[in-house]
Protein backbone atom coordinates (compact mmCIF):
# COMPACT_ATOMS: atom_id res chain seq x y z
CA UNK A 1 0.00 0.00 0.00
CA UNK A 2 2.78 2.33 1.00
CA UNK A 3 4.82 1.40 -2.01
CA UNK A 4 1.90 2.07 -4.33
CA UNK A 5 1.29 5.49 -2.83
CA UNK A 6 4.97 6.34 -3.12
CA UNK A 7 5.20 5.16 -6.74
CA UNK A 8 2.21 7.11 -8.05
CA UNK A 9 3.60 10.65 -7.90
CA UNK A 10 6.98 9.44 -9.10
CA UNK A 11 5.43 7.81 -12.23
CA UNK A 12 3.41 10.92 -13.02
CA UNK A 13 6.49 13.07 -12.67
CA UNK A 14 8.53 10.83 -14.94
CA UNK A 15 5.79 10.92 -17.58
CA UNK A 16 5.56 14.70 -17.39
CA UNK A 17 9.34 15.00 -17.76
CA UNK A 18 9.29 12.70 -20.75
CA UNK A 19 6.49 14.66 -22.42
CA UNK A 20 8.29 17.92 -21.82
CA UNK A 21 11.47 16.52 -23.32
CA UNK A 22 9.56 15.36 -26.40
CA UNK A 23 7.93 18.77 -26.81
CA UNK A 24 11.33 20.47 -26.54
CA UNK A 25 12.78 18.14 -29.13
CA UNK A 26 9.88 18.85 -31.50
CA UNK A 27 10.34 22.57 -31.07
CA UNK A 28 14.08 22.39 -31.65
CA UNK A 29 13.84 20.58 -34.98
CA UNK A 30 10.80 21.20 -37.14
CA UNK A 31 9.22 17.86 -37.97
CA UNK A 32 9.96 16.65 -41.48
CA UNK A 33 6.97 16.43 -43.75
CA UNK A 34 5.64 12.96 -44.24
CA UNK A 35 6.74 10.94 -47.27
CA UNK A 36 4.15 8.53 -48.63
CA UNK A 37 5.09 5.15 -50.01
CA UNK A 38 3.07 5.70 -53.17
CA UNK A 39 5.26 8.66 -54.08
CA UNK A 40 8.38 6.53 -54.01
CA UNK A 41 7.09 3.65 -56.11
CA UNK A 42 7.41 3.18 -59.84
CA UNK A 43 10.59 5.08 -60.65
CA UNK A 44 12.30 4.21 -63.91
CA UNK A 45 15.33 2.02 -63.30
CA UNK A 46 17.69 4.35 -65.08
CA UNK A 47 16.75 7.93 -64.28
CA UNK A 48 19.46 10.56 -64.36
CA UNK A 49 18.65 14.06 -63.15
CA UNK A 50 20.65 16.89 -61.59
CA UNK A 51 20.88 16.68 -57.81
CA UNK A 52 20.43 20.42 -57.40
CA UNK A 53 18.58 22.77 -59.69
CA UNK A 54 19.17 26.45 -59.06
CA UNK A 55 15.87 28.18 -59.68
CA UNK A 56 15.86 31.85 -60.48
CA UNK A 57 13.07 34.37 -60.60
CA UNK A 58 14.83 36.26 -63.39
CA UNK A 59 15.08 33.58 -66.01
CA UNK A 60 13.94 29.97 -66.44
CA UNK A 61 16.24 27.33 -65.02
CA UNK A 62 17.20 24.56 -67.39
CA UNK A 63 17.63 20.93 -66.47
CA UNK A 64 18.21 17.72 -68.32
CA UNK A 65 16.69 14.38 -67.59
CA UNK A 66 17.50 11.04 -69.14
CA UNK A 67 15.74 7.79 -68.50
CA UNK A 68 15.03 4.35 -69.82
CA UNK A 69 11.43 3.91 -70.86
CA UNK A 70 10.36 0.96 -68.74
CA UNK A 71 7.00 2.43 -67.76
CA UNK A 72 8.34 4.29 -64.73
CA UNK A 73 8.68 7.98 -63.93
CA UNK A 74 11.75 10.12 -63.59
CA UNK A 75 11.61 13.12 -61.29
CA UNK A 76 13.54 16.29 -60.50
CA UNK A 77 13.48 17.62 -56.95
CA UNK A 78 13.12 21.34 -56.33
CA UNK A 79 12.46 23.18 -53.09
CA UNK A 80 12.18 26.54 -51.40
CA UNK A 81 14.78 27.45 -48.78
CA UNK A 82 14.33 25.41 -45.63
CA UNK A 83 13.91 23.14 -47.47
CA UNK A 84 10.18 23.27 -47.92
CA UNK A 85 8.03 22.36 -50.89
CA UNK A 86 6.51 24.91 -53.20
CA UNK A 87 2.86 25.74 -52.64
CA UNK A 88 1.96 24.43 -56.09
CA UNK A 89 3.20 24.07 -59.63
CA UNK A 90 1.66 24.62 -63.02
CA UNK A 91 2.46 23.22 -66.45
CA UNK A 92 3.48 26.00 -68.84
CA UNK A 93 4.25 23.79 -71.81
CA UNK A 94 3.36 20.14 -72.07
CA UNK A 95 5.67 17.38 -73.17
CA UNK A 96 4.73 16.05 -76.60
CA UNK A 97 5.38 12.42 -75.72
CA UNK A 98 4.61 12.04 -72.06
CA UNK A 99 2.87 13.37 -68.97
CA UNK A 100 3.93 15.60 -66.09
CA UNK A 101 3.06 15.24 -62.42
CA UNK A 102 4.04 17.91 -59.91
CA UNK A 103 3.76 16.66 -56.35
CA UNK A 104 5.01 17.31 -52.86
CA UNK A 105 7.30 14.61 -51.56
CA UNK A 106 8.29 15.28 -47.98
CA UNK A 107 10.03 18.63 -47.69
CA UNK A 108 10.44 19.11 -51.42
CA UNK A 109 8.47 19.30 -54.64
CA UNK A 110 9.12 16.70 -57.29
CA UNK A 111 8.47 17.24 -60.98
CA UNK A 112 7.88 13.84 -62.56
CA UNK A 113 7.89 12.93 -66.21
CA UNK A 114 6.18 9.78 -67.51
CA UNK A 115 7.11 8.93 -71.09
CA UNK A 116 4.41 7.49 -73.30
CA UNK A 117 4.64 3.75 -73.69
CA UNK A 118 7.06 2.65 -76.40
CA UNK A 119 8.40 6.17 -76.82
CA UNK A 120 12.08 6.76 -77.34
CA UNK A 121 13.62 10.09 -78.30
CA UNK A 122 13.70 13.61 -76.97
CA UNK A 123 10.98 15.60 -75.31
CA UNK A 124 10.71 18.81 -73.31
CA UNK A 125 8.36 20.65 -71.01
CA UNK A 126 8.23 23.69 -68.75
CA UNK A 127 6.72 24.06 -65.32
CA UNK A 128 6.30 27.07 -63.07
CA UNK A 129 6.57 26.88 -59.30
CA UNK A 130 4.81 29.09 -56.82
CA UNK A 131 5.37 31.21 -54.84
CA UNK A 132 8.05 33.04 -56.75
CA UNK A 133 7.01 32.04 -60.24
CA UNK A 134 10.34 30.37 -61.05
CA UNK A 135 10.23 28.42 -64.27
CA UNK A 136 11.96 25.14 -64.89
CA UNK A 137 12.58 23.98 -68.45
CA UNK A 138 13.33 20.31 -68.71
CA UNK A 139 14.92 18.62 -71.72
CA UNK A 140 14.26 14.90 -71.63
CA UNK A 141 16.05 12.07 -73.39
CA UNK A 142 14.20 8.78 -73.35
CA UNK A 143 15.85 5.52 -74.30
CA UNK A 144 13.54 2.79 -75.41
CA UNK A 145 14.45 -0.74 -76.38
CA UNK A 146 11.58 -2.56 -78.04
CA UNK A 147 10.91 -6.04 -76.69
CA UNK A 148 11.97 -8.94 -78.87
CA UNK A 149 9.56 -9.72 -81.68
CA UNK A 150 6.97 -12.40 -80.89
CA UNK A 151 7.67 -15.82 -82.32
CA UNK A 152 6.35 -16.42 -85.80
CA UNK A 153 3.12 -18.39 -86.01
CA UNK A 154 3.56 -22.07 -86.79
CA UNK A 155 3.78 -22.94 -90.47
CA UNK A 156 0.49 -23.85 -92.01
CA UNK A 157 0.22 -27.54 -92.75
CA UNK A 158 -2.99 -28.75 -94.31
CA UNK A 159 -4.66 -31.47 -92.26
CA UNK A 160 -4.22 -34.93 -93.62
CA UNK A 161 -7.27 -36.16 -95.46
CA UNK A 162 -8.81 -39.21 -94.02
CA UNK A 163 -11.34 -41.45 -95.70
CA UNK A 164 -13.82 -40.79 -92.92
CA UNK A 165 -14.02 -37.13 -93.83
CA UNK A 166 -14.71 -37.71 -97.48
CA UNK A 167 -18.22 -37.28 -98.64
Amino acid at each position, binding site marked *: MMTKAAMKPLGGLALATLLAACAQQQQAAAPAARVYA*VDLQGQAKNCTVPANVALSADRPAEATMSLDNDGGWCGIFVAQPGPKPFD*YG*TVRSRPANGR*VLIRKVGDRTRVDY*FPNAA*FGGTDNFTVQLMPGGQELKVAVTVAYTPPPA*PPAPPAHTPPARTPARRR
Partner: protein
Amino acid sequence: MSKRTSPPRRRAHALLLGAALLSATSPALAVPRCATETDQSVFELEALKTELMVVATTCHMEDRYNAFVERYKPTLAQNGRAFGQYFTRVHGRTGQRQNDIFITELANARSNAARQLGSDFCPRNGGLFTEVMSLRGEADLAPYAAGKDLLSAGVTACEGAPAPRPARPAATRRASR
Protein backbone atom coordinates in the same frame (compact mmCIF):
# COMPACT_ATOMS: atom_id res chain seq x y z
CA MET B 1 -12.80 -29.94 -95.46
CA SER B 2 -9.52 -28.14 -95.79
CA LYS B 3 -11.37 -25.27 -97.48
CA ARG B 4 -13.51 -24.83 -94.39
CA THR B 5 -10.55 -24.67 -92.02
CA SER B 6 -8.53 -22.30 -94.15
CA PRO B 7 -10.41 -18.98 -93.71
CA PRO B 8 -10.31 -18.95 -89.91
CA ARG B 9 -6.60 -19.73 -90.01
CA ARG B 10 -6.02 -16.94 -92.48
CA ARG B 11 -8.03 -14.63 -90.26
CA ALA B 12 -5.99 -15.62 -87.26
CA HIS B 13 -2.79 -14.97 -89.15
CA ALA B 14 -4.12 -11.67 -90.38
CA LEU B 15 -5.02 -10.72 -86.82
CA LEU B 16 -1.54 -11.61 -85.59
CA LEU B 17 0.02 -9.66 -88.42
CA GLY B 18 -2.26 -6.71 -87.80
CA ALA B 19 -1.54 -6.68 -84.10
CA ALA B 20 2.18 -6.92 -84.73
CA LEU B 21 2.07 -4.07 -87.24
CA LEU B 22 -0.03 -1.95 -84.94
CA SER B 23 2.27 -2.43 -81.96
CA ALA B 24 5.39 -1.95 -84.01
CA THR B 25 4.46 1.14 -85.95
CA SER B 26 2.18 3.28 -83.86
CA PRO B 27 2.34 5.17 -80.60
CA ALA B 28 -1.12 3.80 -79.84
CA LEU B 29 -0.02 2.62 -76.42
CA ALA B 30 0.35 6.22 -75.29
CA VAL B 31 -2.26 7.61 -72.94
CA PRO B 32 -4.72 9.14 -75.40
CA ARG B 33 -4.77 12.88 -75.48
CA CYS B 34 -7.30 15.27 -76.96
CA ALA B 35 -6.72 16.60 -80.43
CA THR B 36 -6.68 20.16 -79.16
CA GLU B 37 -5.07 21.78 -76.14
CA THR B 38 -8.40 23.36 -75.22
CA ASP B 39 -10.24 20.05 -75.04
CA GLN B 40 -7.38 18.50 -73.07
CA SER B 41 -7.56 21.32 -70.51
CA VAL B 42 -11.33 20.92 -70.22
CA PHE B 43 -10.95 17.22 -69.41
CA GLU B 44 -8.12 17.82 -66.95
CA LEU B 45 -10.08 20.42 -65.04
CA GLU B 46 -13.09 18.14 -64.90
CA ALA B 47 -10.83 15.39 -63.57
CA LEU B 48 -9.46 17.73 -60.90
CA LYS B 49 -12.97 18.64 -59.82
CA THR B 50 -13.88 14.95 -59.58
CA GLU B 51 -10.73 14.16 -57.62
CA LEU B 52 -11.50 16.93 -55.13
CA MET B 53 -15.05 15.64 -54.83
CA VAL B 54 -13.75 12.16 -54.03
CA VAL B 55 -11.35 13.60 -51.44
CA ALA B 56 -14.15 15.64 -49.91
CA THR B 57 -16.60 12.76 -49.60
CA THR B 58 -14.00 10.20 -48.50
CA CYS B 59 -12.24 12.45 -46.00
CA HIS B 60 -15.22 14.47 -44.77
CA MET B 61 -13.89 17.67 -46.27
CA GLU B 62 -17.13 18.87 -47.81
CA ASP B 63 -16.60 22.38 -46.46
CA ARG B 64 -13.28 22.66 -48.28
CA TYR B 65 -14.85 21.39 -51.49
CA ASN B 66 -17.63 23.94 -51.19
CA ALA B 67 -15.05 26.67 -50.66
CA PHE B 68 -13.23 25.49 -53.81
CA VAL B 69 -16.42 25.55 -55.87
CA GLU B 70 -17.36 28.95 -54.48
CA ARG B 71 -13.97 30.47 -55.28
CA TYR B 72 -13.73 29.13 -58.84
CA LYS B 73 -17.41 29.14 -59.71
CA PRO B 74 -17.16 31.11 -62.98
CA THR B 75 -14.29 28.97 -64.33
CA LEU B 76 -15.90 25.73 -63.24
CA ALA B 77 -19.22 26.70 -64.78
CA GLN B 78 -17.57 27.67 -68.05
CA ASN B 79 -15.57 24.45 -68.06
CA GLY B 80 -18.68 22.39 -67.34
CA ARG B 81 -20.37 23.94 -70.36
CA ALA B 82 -17.39 23.25 -72.59
CA PHE B 83 -17.30 19.69 -71.29
CA GLY B 84 -20.96 19.16 -72.18
CA GLN B 85 -20.49 20.77 -75.57
CA TYR B 86 -17.61 18.46 -76.31
CA PHE B 87 -19.80 15.38 -75.87
CA THR B 88 -22.63 16.90 -77.90
CA ARG B 89 -20.17 17.76 -80.66
CA VAL B 90 -18.67 14.29 -80.74
CA HIS B 91 -21.62 12.08 -79.89
CA GLY B 92 -24.58 14.13 -81.09
CA ARG B 93 -27.88 13.10 -79.54
CA THR B 94 -26.24 10.59 -77.21
CA GLY B 95 -23.86 13.26 -75.94
CA GLN B 96 -25.53 13.66 -72.56
CA ARG B 97 -25.49 9.92 -72.00
CA GLN B 98 -21.82 9.68 -72.96
CA ASN B 99 -21.10 12.61 -70.68
CA ASP B 100 -22.79 10.82 -67.77
CA ILE B 101 -20.90 7.61 -68.52
CA PHE B 102 -17.59 9.42 -68.62
CA ILE B 103 -18.22 11.25 -65.35
CA THR B 104 -19.23 7.99 -63.67
CA GLU B 105 -16.14 6.19 -64.95
CA LEU B 106 -13.94 9.08 -63.90
CA ALA B 107 -15.37 9.09 -60.38
CA ASN B 108 -14.96 5.31 -60.19
CA ALA B 109 -11.35 5.52 -61.37
CA ARG B 110 -10.50 8.19 -58.82
CA SER B 111 -12.28 6.24 -56.07
CA ASN B 112 -10.31 3.15 -56.98
CA ALA B 113 -7.10 5.15 -56.81
CA ALA B 114 -8.20 6.39 -53.39
CA ARG B 115 -8.88 2.86 -52.22
CA GLN B 116 -5.43 1.74 -53.32
CA LEU B 117 -3.86 4.42 -51.13
CA GLY B 118 -5.77 3.21 -48.08
CA SER B 119 -5.18 5.22 -44.92
CA ASP B 120 -2.62 7.43 -46.72
CA PHE B 121 -5.27 8.85 -49.02
CA CYS B 122 -6.75 11.53 -46.78
CA PRO B 123 -3.53 12.97 -45.29
CA ARG B 124 -1.83 12.90 -48.70
CA ASN B 125 -4.57 14.00 -51.08
CA GLY B 126 -6.26 16.32 -48.61
CA GLY B 127 -3.37 18.65 -49.36
CA LEU B 128 -4.84 19.23 -52.80
CA PHE B 129 -7.33 21.63 -51.22
CA THR B 130 -4.50 23.66 -49.70
CA GLU B 131 -2.78 23.79 -53.07
CA VAL B 132 -5.80 24.65 -55.13
CA MET B 133 -6.91 27.36 -52.73
CA SER B 134 -3.47 28.96 -52.86
CA LEU B 135 -3.56 29.51 -56.63
CA ARG B 136 -3.02 33.12 -57.63
CA GLY B 137 -6.25 33.21 -59.56
CA GLU B 138 -8.64 31.37 -61.83
CA ALA B 139 -6.18 31.52 -64.72
CA ASP B 140 -3.90 29.13 -62.84
CA LEU B 141 -6.57 26.47 -62.40
CA ALA B 142 -6.17 24.72 -65.77
CA PRO B 143 -2.33 24.77 -65.78
CA TYR B 144 -2.44 23.46 -62.21
CA ALA B 145 -4.76 20.61 -63.23
CA ALA B 146 -2.42 19.81 -66.13
CA GLY B 147 0.31 18.97 -63.62
CA LYS B 148 -1.75 16.49 -61.64
CA ASP B 149 -1.88 13.61 -64.14
CA LEU B 150 -5.41 12.61 -63.20
CA LEU B 151 -6.43 11.16 -66.55
CA SER B 152 -3.93 8.38 -66.85
CA ALA B 153 -5.56 5.60 -64.87
CA GLY B 154 -8.86 4.09 -65.84
CA VAL B 155 -10.18 6.85 -68.07
CA THR B 156 -8.89 8.61 -71.13
CA ALA B 157 -9.43 12.20 -72.15
CA CYS B 158 -11.54 12.70 -75.24
CA GLU B 159 -12.53 9.05 -75.38
CA GLY B 160 -14.43 8.45 -78.56
CA ALA B 161 -13.26 11.68 -80.10
CA PRO B 162 -12.40 11.88 -83.75
CA ALA B 163 -8.80 12.42 -82.71
CA PRO B 164 -6.10 11.56 -85.21
CA ARG B 165 -5.35 7.91 -84.84
CA PRO B 166 -2.91 5.73 -86.68
CA ALA B 167 -4.36 4.00 -89.70
CA ARG B 168 -5.14 0.37 -89.04
CA PRO B 169 -3.75 -2.14 -91.45
CA ALA B 170 -6.19 -3.46 -94.03
CA ALA B 171 -5.63 -6.99 -92.79
CA THR B 172 -6.99 -6.10 -89.36
CA ARG B 173 -10.08 -4.52 -90.82
CA ARG B 174 -10.81 -7.54 -92.96
CA ALA B 175 -10.26 -9.84 -90.04
CA SER B 176 -12.66 -7.99 -87.78
CA ARG B 177 -15.62 -8.44 -90.09
